[in-house]
């Protein structure tokens, strides 16, 4: 189970967080970069399908086929992507899956980033004992292999999308925490902070007004990559049978396809489209995330 894409420089040395032209400048550079541009377009397309899909072509789980001839049909005019083992239209399932997969990815990412940023900022700001303790915990979670942990928790807690969101966040926050921590450490060393201290700004004030904005850029770049990883993680867990059978995520469709023997029997219309969907979405966010990282970290840009 791969987590968020490893920062390809692997150096703990942090980012300046300074981009010419602020956020609008970042956006401009993102569009100018081919990778970023393609990624943004793909993300926009995905969001469009996720939002418009359920409105234009809603999926009804209970719309099963009336007779045996309706099941596992290859693509036809009536069903562009054929039907599944219960005769349900696969195209609608895939479209519905867009919003489910995206929703889970976003929520899991939000929690991951929340926990990771909090831990990272606290560790980077307080240093010393607090830092050591937090980092020991973080390192421990990093060392535990994520998929077995998610499987174990899933089996114990029970199948539900809430559980999936929870276990993804639980296994993803450590790498975000590490990245945020090293950036927080760097921001802390900046003169601005020293001056703020002499002026008498409280710790909480400094944290909120200086440290947090200083790490924000990196957090966002990291968050985009975490979205990609979370969507992959949810797909994997659902495929392994830990998802909610009543919610149609792409992983869930693939699970159904697999247990129905779609691969062995060659029902390609069943397992190809959901997989392609996953690849598209994950790739889209990866492109944007990698491009953002390159823009925000000049060292990575030089090495590209």
């Amino acid at each position, binding site marked *: 189970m791969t987590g968020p894409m490893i920062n390809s420089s*692997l150096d703990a040395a942090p980012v300046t967080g300074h981009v010419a032209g602020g956020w609008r400048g970042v956006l401009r550079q993102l569009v100018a970069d081919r990778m970023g541009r393609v990624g943004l377009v793909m993300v926009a397309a995905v969001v469009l399908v996720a939002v418009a899909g359920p409105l234009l072509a809603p999926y009804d789980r209970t719309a099963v086929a009336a007779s045996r001839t309706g099941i596992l049909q290859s693509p036809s005019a009536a069903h562009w992507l054929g039907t599944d083992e219960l005769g349900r239209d696969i195209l609608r399932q895939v479209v519905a899956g867009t919003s489910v997969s995206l929703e889970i990815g976003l929520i899991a990412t939000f929690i991951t980033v929340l926990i990771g940023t909090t831990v990272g900022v606290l560790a980077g700001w307080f240093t010393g004992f607090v830092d050591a303790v937090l980092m020991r915990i973080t390192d421990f979670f990093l*060392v535990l292999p994520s*998929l077995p942990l998610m499987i174990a*928790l899933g089996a114990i807690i029970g199948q539900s999308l809430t559980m999936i969101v929870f276990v993804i966040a639980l296994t993803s926050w450590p790498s975000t925490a590490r990245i945020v921590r090293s950036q927080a450490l760097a921001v802390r060393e900046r003169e601005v902070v020293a001056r703020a201290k002499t002026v008498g700004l409280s710790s909480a004030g400094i944290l909120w007004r200086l440290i947090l904005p200083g790490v924000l850029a990196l957090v966002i770049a990291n968050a985009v990559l975490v979205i990609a990883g979370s969507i992959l993680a949810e797909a994997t867990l659902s495929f392994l049978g830990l998802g909610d059978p009543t919610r149609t995520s792409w992983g869930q469709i693939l699970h159904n396809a697999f247990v129905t023997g779609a691969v062995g029997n060659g029902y390609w219309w069943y397992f190809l489209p959901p*997989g392609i969907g996953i690849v598209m979405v994950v790739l889209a966010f990866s492109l944007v995330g990698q491009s953002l990282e390159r823009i925000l970290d000049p060292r990575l840009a030089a090495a590209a």
Partner: protein
Amino acid sequence: MAQYVGRKLGYLVLTLAAVLATNFTLFHLMPGDPVTHIARGQHLDADAIARLRSFYGLDMPLPSQFITYVAHLFRGDFGWSYTYQTSVGPIVAKALGNTLILVTISTLLVIVLGVGIGVFAASRRGTRTDGGLVIGSLVFWSLPTFWVGMLLIFVFAVTLGWLPIAGMFTADAVYPTVFTKIADLARHLILPTMAMVLVDIAQFVLISRSSLLAVLSEDYMTTARAKGLSPRRVLWRHGVRNALLPVVTATSLYASATVGGTIQVETVFSWPGMGQLIYLSVIRRDYPIMEACFLIFAVVVVLANFASDIAYRLLDPRVRLT
């Protein structure tokens, strides 16, 4: 150096202890008392349930349960499987062997091919080949491992019929010699290995590429060329040798990713290893097996991290000894 190893060993022991504690907590404290699961379909009376609990040691206070658990582990007793109705140890041991065959070969391929392609891409920096390899790596990283497995089966086994669909050996096969057995194993290995390699290779390509690019712009590379060393020596002894350092760090993260990949690939290909074992244990709610699998996976990853730390120290003299 000895001091460094000693310190790392200390952390290793502490981490392993934490893993044991986590394992115990997960499977003994979480909701889902195993006896309830067993008793569910069997309409046992209170007495029988009490005896079952006693058999599984569930009526004792938690700390002593933990000590018993650890003591059993050290004796090699991993518990009793609900579904197989036999000791967990041998089942897991056999599965582990099968997994190791798959993992060893794919890891070797991933590292060798990944670094090789990454170095190649770096040497062709700025060209379309390089750009293509980077995009290609991003695309491959976005592929879910289990789906790649499904695709490979569909194309090579179902449609083309060149390779077996699933499993480690052909069912009910008779092997006149050891070589035919190995050949059959090899045929079954090809697709699962491909599935594991295709996705994980991307990380190594990207890391070795960017690492080498950063190294190539360092002054000591110019010094090496200025000394009149052969281009190959400059690239490998000075360039790659330094670029390897982040790659070694990556292998420790890779260990965790490999576990995930193993579980997915073995499930899709019905490969009788630890991955498939944990998958089946989820379906059957066989907690002792699940627990043993989790423990082994965690321990292996912790050990891999330890090895990677030591290897890093051997490669980079700048790492402080204390």
